């Protein structure tokens, strides 16, 4: 059906559709069956598929991950969800020492088709342990795939890809994309795992983003266009595998690169990896110094007064582009009537 969907709706519909088709799919996590049903993404699933296939869990992240792995060794296709990525740090042993390696460890006969949705918090005082995006940790581990959808449509495609993938896939699911709307055909599917999405085509500069950062770049489209900046905008979608060839093609064309990375901290980030891989292919590709914008080298603050500067602003983004292009840009930004720490006007806290 073609109509306007929210990302959260798309997740819900997609889960329902796939679970209907394949009764080996099992969905669990803290709160999947509660009145808020993970920001409405797991709504009615338990009612439709029963308590065996859709279940709430104890606060035991490490064991529950292992339990997902165990099921998957016997044909189940588990979908786990964590309301914040930060909670999942308890399960790194299961993820890294078991999920990512089981197949290799036992000679290549035992794949682990688990999908793990990790929600990234932002704003409204989420603070140091409710807003980390550790995508580069997961991307660093051989045997794991990592995707970071940005829109309802890419969420649909990547969620399907992840669930159908025979190996563990981590979905980086930013809290602020849940309410983003897009008109789409809910029953279509296009494989996007391993591929980038070129959202805008141009020749002056390559902008790369993923997940909610992609939305942030959309907000400066008007300014860029009215200033006659012709830009490639790459929505990464798939952090790993990374479509470095497509990225290289773009940077080769523009010679200029800015990456907006909503993962915390610059060290060993996905952005560094992109720059490093491009350099390894050909350092001459860069006509200007590439720029990475990400979160500062410090745990994220809770205070409203600090998050404003902690996160990248549209203005800062534009300034960086000005720096690369050596050109002043007149601002055509929509007046933001919202406080900086909420995704939309419907959000009034607390979670």
């Amino acid at each position: 059906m073609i109509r306007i969907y929210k990302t959260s709706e798309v997740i819900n519909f997609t889960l329902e559709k796939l679970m209907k088709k394949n009764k080996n799919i099992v969905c669990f996590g803290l709160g999947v069956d509660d009145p808020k049903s993970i920001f409405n993404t797991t709504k009615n699933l338990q009612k439709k598929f029963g308590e065996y296939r859709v279940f709430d869990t104890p606060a035991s992240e490490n064991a529950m991950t292992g339990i997902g792995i165990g099921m998957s060794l016997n044909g189940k296709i588990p979908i786990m969800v964590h309301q914040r990525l930060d909670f999942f740090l308890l399960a790194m042993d299961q993820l890294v020492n078991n999920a990512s390696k089981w197949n290799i460890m036992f000679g290549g006969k035992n794949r682990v088709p688990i999908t793990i949705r990790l929600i990234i918090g932002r704003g409204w005082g989420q603070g140091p342990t409710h807003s980390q995006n550790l995508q580069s940790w997961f991307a660093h581990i051989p045997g794991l795939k990592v995707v970071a959808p940005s829109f309802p449509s890419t969420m649909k495609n990547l969620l399907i890809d992840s669930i159908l993938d025979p190996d563990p896939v981590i979905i980086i699911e930013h809290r602020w994309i849940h309410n983003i709307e897009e008109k789409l055909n809910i029953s279509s599917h296009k494989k996007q795992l391993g591929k980038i999405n070129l959202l805008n085509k141009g020749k002056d500069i390559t902008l790369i983003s993923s997940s909610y950062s992609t939305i942030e770049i959309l907000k400066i489209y008007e300014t860029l266009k009215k200033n006659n900046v012709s830009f490639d905008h790459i929505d990464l979608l798939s952090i790993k595998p990374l479509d470095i060839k497509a990225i290289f093609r773009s940077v080769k064309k523009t010679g200029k690169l800015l990456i907006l990375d909503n993962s915390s901290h610059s060290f060993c980030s996905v952005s560094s990896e992109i720059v490093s891989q491009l350099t390894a292919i050909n350092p001459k590709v860069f006509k200007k110094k590439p720029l990475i914008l990400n979160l500062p080298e410090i745990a994220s603050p809770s205070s409203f007064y600090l998050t404003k500067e902690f996160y990248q602003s549209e203005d800062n983004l534009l300034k960086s582009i000005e720096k690369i292009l050596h050109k002043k840009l007149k601002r055509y930004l929509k007046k933001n009537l919202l406080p900086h720490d909420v995704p939309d006007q419907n959000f009034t806290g607390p979670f």
Partner: protein
Amino acid sequence: MKLKKNNYINFFKKIYLIRKTELEISERYSEQKMRCPVHLSVGQEAPSAAINIFLKKTDFAISYHRAHAHYLAKDCSLKKMIAEIYGKASGCSNGFGGSMHLVDEKKNFIGSTAIVSNSIPVGAGYAYSILNNSKNNKVCIYIGDASCEEGVFFETLNFVVLKKLPVIFFCENNKYSVYSGLKNRQPKNRKLFKLASAFGIKSFHLSSLNAIELLKKMHKIFQKKIDEPIFIEVDTYRYLEHCGPNRDDNLNYRPTKEIKHWSNNDPLVITENYLLKKKFCSEKNIKEIKFKIDALIRDAFIFAENSNPPRYKDYERLVLK
């Protein structure tokens, strides 16, 4: 040592302070100046109020996301707590932490954290650092019923018993983890205190609905010299939503009967009535107490509102070099 009049009055004062502070937060939350998740303790004031009648000032405490009551019951700075929730520089954590990261070094409140159970071993480590201290100080580790589902709780329990650390595990069992009732998370008939006890720790269960009875039972525990780690489970109930300022009974995740059962035994009402009945206080005394505390709370909010926001520069200074 018997429970004295003053103990009862203090108990009431703590409960009243917590209740009114939380309700004030709840009321003002919609002003959107307290922009962080808040886990309020309305309804479950009595347990921490009770234990803090018996803990010494020199004892330590460490807590989790629902820490307001624990913090206030230990006489930590109300002003700094409210300022912290407002995200101001004058907050106990300079606004960096928010409602879930309360600290008061002066009052030996070590901190509170926002990942279920991850303050538990930190409390045990603190206890290790004061092992064999001459003052016989203890570390009170506050936990919720869901804390007892995380592996680290059991690991810590084992270590605490192994090393005989001066720890009091204080578990407020309010039967819910967010919207999840116990039946989703723990087997029927699970008794947390018995589970703890199987690890070799002396364990107590205070299941009284009546706050005064709770106080008396707590008193009994502290009558004897405590020279080993202990575990105390207290049944309690929150009136408001898990996180946020409102009631959420309309969501129907909790039986109406259960809600009634608890709210009919409101700790504030019970303690106030008890003071009057026992003539520990006159109506006038009570009014005075309330008036004073109300003023403190008012002042704390004024302090918070008037405080300066933290400067980003000061935050950035903490980047490691």
